[in-house]
């Protein structure tokens, strides 16, 4: 029951032509600059716009194949967080969230209970009775998120679901969303501008520019071999799975890292390639993490060089060309990688 979409939409000056597949349980992040066609793709998948050509299929169910087949939005089991929320102004926050379950036939009392639980999850329990116009921007976005998640749809479409959130709420909601998406058997398409959201939440990235896919693949793969400077900049993040025990995280791929914030159980750890320092000899100092690595490859970007390093763990490091010359970096060079614990962000996975 994979979502298989070949989205072709032609509009005045803009043409979208992308192919997307999302397997059950998979989270695909759609990234790209403003006006790349992300919202357009979301609308076509939701059944709000018709394709000009191509198809949208979930397993054997054809949702759209012009000119014959078109299943309207209300008969697709989708959930959408819209970029501008589109909360119903005449309903309270609670009623907004309960709307989906009610529409899908859940009895009123159950729908309200579910809605209340989700509002609590996004931290808005005490705003349940508020009208959307009286909510702040971030609060409105959280209600919109709860409204889309509560129905447990087959296909979840999230258009910048965290954009209006402040830093600390974002951290919390991102973790909550991650937890939800992990247990969630449906397919998720996540549109975001935030590389961290994409890296942490998604199983696969699809990066589009001007209506076409420029690269796709698992986050680490894309981060390893970004095809353009734009992508390199966008997904410049080392991401590892591991199991935390206090401030030590044992990585699934081998090795361990010391982090600043203690945690327990399965986690993601993430740090930018720019945070990894390279030394010819083991240095003594504040950085908690120091381990031997071997240069596996080098990639020149606009002003920096991305160095692929094999080791436990294997990581990417961004350095200036001057460093490459000075340390005589070349495949096979043996070095020490250094990473400060405070540079590492840790997110619970489960």
């Amino acid at each position, binding site marked *: 029951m994979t979502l298989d979409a070949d989205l072709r939409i032609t509009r005045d000056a803009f043409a979208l032509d992308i192919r997307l597949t999302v397997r059950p349980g998979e989270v695909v992040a759609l990234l790209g600059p403003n006006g790349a066609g992300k919202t357009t793709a979301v609308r076509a998948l*939701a*059944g*709000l716009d018709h394709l000009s050509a191509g198809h949208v299929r979930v397993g054997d169910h054809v949702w759209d194949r012009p000119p014959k087949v078109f299943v*309207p*939005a*209300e008969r*697709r*089991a*989708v*959930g*959408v967080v*819209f970029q501008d929320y*589109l909360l*119903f*102004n*005449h*309903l309270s926050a609670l009623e907004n969230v309960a*709307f*989906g379950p009610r*529409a*899908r036939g859940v009895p009123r009392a159950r729908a309200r209970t579910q809605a209340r639980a989700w509002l609590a999850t996004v931290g808005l329990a005490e705003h349940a009775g508020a009208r959307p116009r009286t909510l702040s921007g971030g609060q409105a976005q959280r209600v919109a998120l709860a*409204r889309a998640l509560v*129905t447990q749809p087959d296909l979840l*479409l999230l258009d910048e679901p965290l954009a209006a959130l402040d830093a600390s709420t974002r951290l919390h909601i991102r973790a909550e969303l991650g937890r939800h998406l992990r247990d969630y058997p449906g397919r998720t398409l996540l549109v975001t501008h935030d590389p961290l959201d994409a890296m942490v939440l998604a199983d696969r990235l699809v990066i589009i520019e001007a209506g076409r896919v420029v690269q796709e693949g698992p986050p680490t793969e894309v981060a390893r071999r970004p095809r353009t400077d734009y992508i390199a900049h966008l997904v410049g993040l080392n991401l590892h799975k591991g199991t935390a025990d206090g401030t030590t995280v044992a990585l699934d791929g081998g090795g361990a890292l010391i982090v600043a914030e203690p945690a327990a159980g399965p986690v993601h750890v993430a740090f930018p390639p720019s945070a990894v320092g390279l030394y010819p000899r083991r240095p003594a100092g504040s950085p908690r993490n120091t381990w031997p690595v071997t240069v596996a490859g080098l990639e020149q970007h606009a002003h920096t060089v991305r160095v692929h390093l094999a080791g436990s763990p294997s990581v990417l490091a961004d350095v200036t060309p001057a460093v490459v010359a000075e340390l005589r970096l070349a495949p096979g060079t043996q070095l020490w990688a250094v990473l400060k614990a405070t540079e590492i962000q840790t997110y619970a996975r489960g």
Partner: protein
Amino acid sequence: MKARQSRPAALVIPAAIGLAFLTIPLAGLLLQAPWKDLPHHLLTPEIQAALKLSLVCATLTTALCLTLGIPLAWLLARADLPGRGFLRALVTVPLVLPPVVGGVALLLVLGRRGPVGHYLDSWFGISLPFTTAGVVLAEAFVAMPFLVISVEGALRAADSRYEEAAATLGASKLLTFRRVTLPAIAPGIIAGTVLCWARALGEFGATITFAGNFPGETTTMPLAVYLALETDPDAAVVLSVALLAVSIAVLACLRDRWISGPR
């Protein structure tokens, strides 16, 4: 707290002229009315029956028009019908038709000899002309377009992206219409309802032609006023003023209860 509003003269002056134009003739009537005869004119049982009948019929008419007219407005505004412009224009027919001719048209179809009325009569024994039901039909024929067109205007102005949001939540077109669209266009529906009710209340030509004029059954206030005008113009003025007073009272009370909040 909302910001207080200043009021530009370029809007206030024409608005004041408009208001004066609509209300000064009423003042003329009020000045002319023989106030001391008022109780005498109004306390007759015929007039009280006519007033009651008018209110009941206008209200039933409005209910009928809401039931049929709101879906019709939706169809015209939202469904992608071929020839929609023409259908929309067709709906204005009863507006343009002189009401007496409208009454004749209703008789042609729903009268004893009409293609529909004939069957109603022989199959169900229902005869609409000369009955209170006939009054409601005649009023509905004349008043429904007001409801349909103003609701359609409201639907067109409404942001249909909220309906899209409802669809993605699994709401059928009908549920979306009921729970999202209608609340959003409530002011337009209220405006249409007021127009419809008021027009039904004042309807004369189609009513007398289709339903006739029989005291207690089909004599609404406008019919009583018209006939009073023939013999006793003062009485006609008094009756009109009474009709107005009642309708203004009803509208002033109802609308402020419907319209919650300051804007």
